[in-house]
């Protein structure tokens, strides 16, 4: 790298909202790449790894969903101070697993978790970051896909637009010539789930749980009918799709239900 490029290293910050912080930890596991990453950028805020704080950021990575009134204030504040904002991991992109609570009455959820102290912990339905502020780019997956994160990261450092895949996991399975998991009698959301994970689960004898959200412009009725053909009822199919995608499933139309 030229000396000039080093001088203007972008300032990068990481923030966590409602999440298990697994995606953030995942980044510290890039043992082979970590030093190269630090050559390219200045990490100015990263609670999981350091104490420093900064006022403004070139790139802010946001992990976790928005699920409390304070989250809303905080995300607005971060957005104001960031040039580029990237949603990191499925909680930030779609609400992820957290959004499963949105299917239940909010009172009931709070009471189940906090009991009589529920009024001390105000909570709202779990939302993706993009429901509150503008999100420039996203890295999907639960946990986030490491190669996709590196792709987005490198693209932003080089000033390019990241190009995450928007096709089904089936594509990656077919490129690898994996035997179809649905055919083995397992449940699989691969035909409607976004690729980018290199078909990790089906390649290792597991089925796709849809952790990367659905491909865009999806045929909802076809998706449910497909799962029905493989022996899953409409309700079961929708329930399974909701595991990581409650917000996406709920905003779509009937999914073949009456």
């Amino acid at each position, binding site marked *: 790298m*030229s000396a000039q490029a080093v001088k203007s290293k972008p300032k990068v910050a990481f923030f966590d909202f409602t999440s298990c912080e697994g995606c953030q930890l995942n980044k510290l596991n890039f043992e082979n790449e970590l030093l190269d990453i630090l050559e390219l950028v200045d990490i100015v805020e990263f609670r999981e790894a350091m104490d420093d704080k900064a006022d403004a950021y070139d790139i802010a990575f946001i992990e976790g969903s928005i699920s409390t009134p304070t989250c809303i204030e905080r995300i607005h504040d971060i957005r104001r101070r960031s040039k580029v904002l990237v949603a990191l991991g499925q909680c930030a992109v779609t609400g992820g697993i957290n959004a499963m609570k949105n299917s239940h009455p909010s009172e009931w959820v709070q009471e189940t978790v906090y009991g009589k102290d529920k009024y001390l912990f105000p909570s709202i339905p779990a939302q993706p970051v993009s429901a509150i502020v503008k999100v420039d780019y996203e890295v999907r997956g639960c946990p986030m896909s490491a190669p996709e994160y590196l792709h987005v990261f490198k693209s932003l450092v080089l000033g390019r637009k990241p190009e995450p895949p928007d096709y089904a996991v089936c594509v990656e399975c077919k490129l690898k010539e994996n035997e179809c998991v649905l055919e083995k009698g397992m449940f699989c959301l691969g035909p409607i789930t976004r690729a980018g994970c290199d078909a990790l689960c089906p390649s290792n004898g597991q089925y796709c749980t849809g952790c990367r959200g659905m491909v865009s412009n999806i045929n909802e009725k076809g998706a449910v009918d497909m799962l029905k053909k493989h022996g899953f009822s409409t309700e079961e199919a929708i329930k399974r799709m909701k595991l990581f995608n409650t917000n996406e499933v709920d905003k779509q139309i009937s999914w073949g239900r009456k």
Partner: protein
Amino acid sequence: MPCYYDLMLYSHCGTKIVKQASNTMWGFLMSKEFNSKLTDLKRYFFNESDVRKFIDFLMTKAEVIAPQTKGEQSFAYNVVKNSSDVALEYPRTMQPLKKYFLPPVETLLTFKMSSNEFSEEVIEAKKQIFFGIHSYEMKGIHLLDYCLGKGKPESNYLKRRANALIIGISYKPDKYHFATSLGIDIEETEGFALFFEKVTEGYLVFVVTDEGAELIKDFSGGKPIDEQVNIEELPQQAKIKYHYNRLPQVFEHVYNSRVWDHFADKCVGCGTCNLLCPTCYCFDVRDEVGLNADDGKRQRFWDGCMLNSFAEVAGGENFRNKLAARMRHRLYRKFSYITKSSGELHCVGCGRCTRYCPADISIVEIINSLIEDYSAQQKKQAV
């Protein structure tokens, strides 16, 4: 016509041929063989152990690639490590043979951004022998040769293709094959060096090219024979209602058919049908830079027109954002658009798109529904 050498039996001493059919039947069957593409070819008899020995022999000549079992119930072409692993009877592999000439992921060039330099990948000109290939698969390769050799030739594909020696084998059609409906006989030998035909106790090996003759000459096993052989037609289960030469005409009239919407309702747009198609060759090219933000490589990946992002352009406009339009495009690419320049149908009836579709959409059903639609239109006009 599809045929299957089933009635001839070999005695255990292996030299005398016992004809099982009656004289009248023999005459009938003889006339069939006369029409067959194998009639004039020199032939040998191999029992199964001869076949395995022959594969071992081929492995001394070059890298041998043949169908082998993969997973619980699938088959895939793979480099042969042990001749006993080769599947001699298999319905179809998952990925078509094109994976060796047009790989699913291929690095085209590597580049360095700081010095603005690049170097193209060198394609190894190594000899490869492909053993146990079905006739529809060979046809698929011929169609790719046409598509990728025309205009500005696809040099990577052609370089790999030039070093391929292909040996064919007969197959028993299952409920997904419809190659014979498209005029591709099981015994179509064009493109093969040798052709293995399953008979009751082994294989008849037909010598198709001089290269094949050379191989057989060098191999010590097998017995030359010169008798004519009996032929039995194997029934095909999946059938297109019209003769294949009428299909381009049908496609002239069904562009606005409701059939597309009907089948698109079931489709989830996963792209399996494209990716496993032996005649699909569309690809996407992506650049990826290393972590030093300087060195990078340009790779190409198989792509498919059934995928939503396929016809998407800068600014987010999508020219085929409906599944019905994408499905129509896929079939028109097989039966109309390229057909107009090549004069051939670009579907080979391997049945992969139907067999592997997670939504159980059958291409034969689509074509037959289109034929019904077309014939209804014709009847209306006749009144």
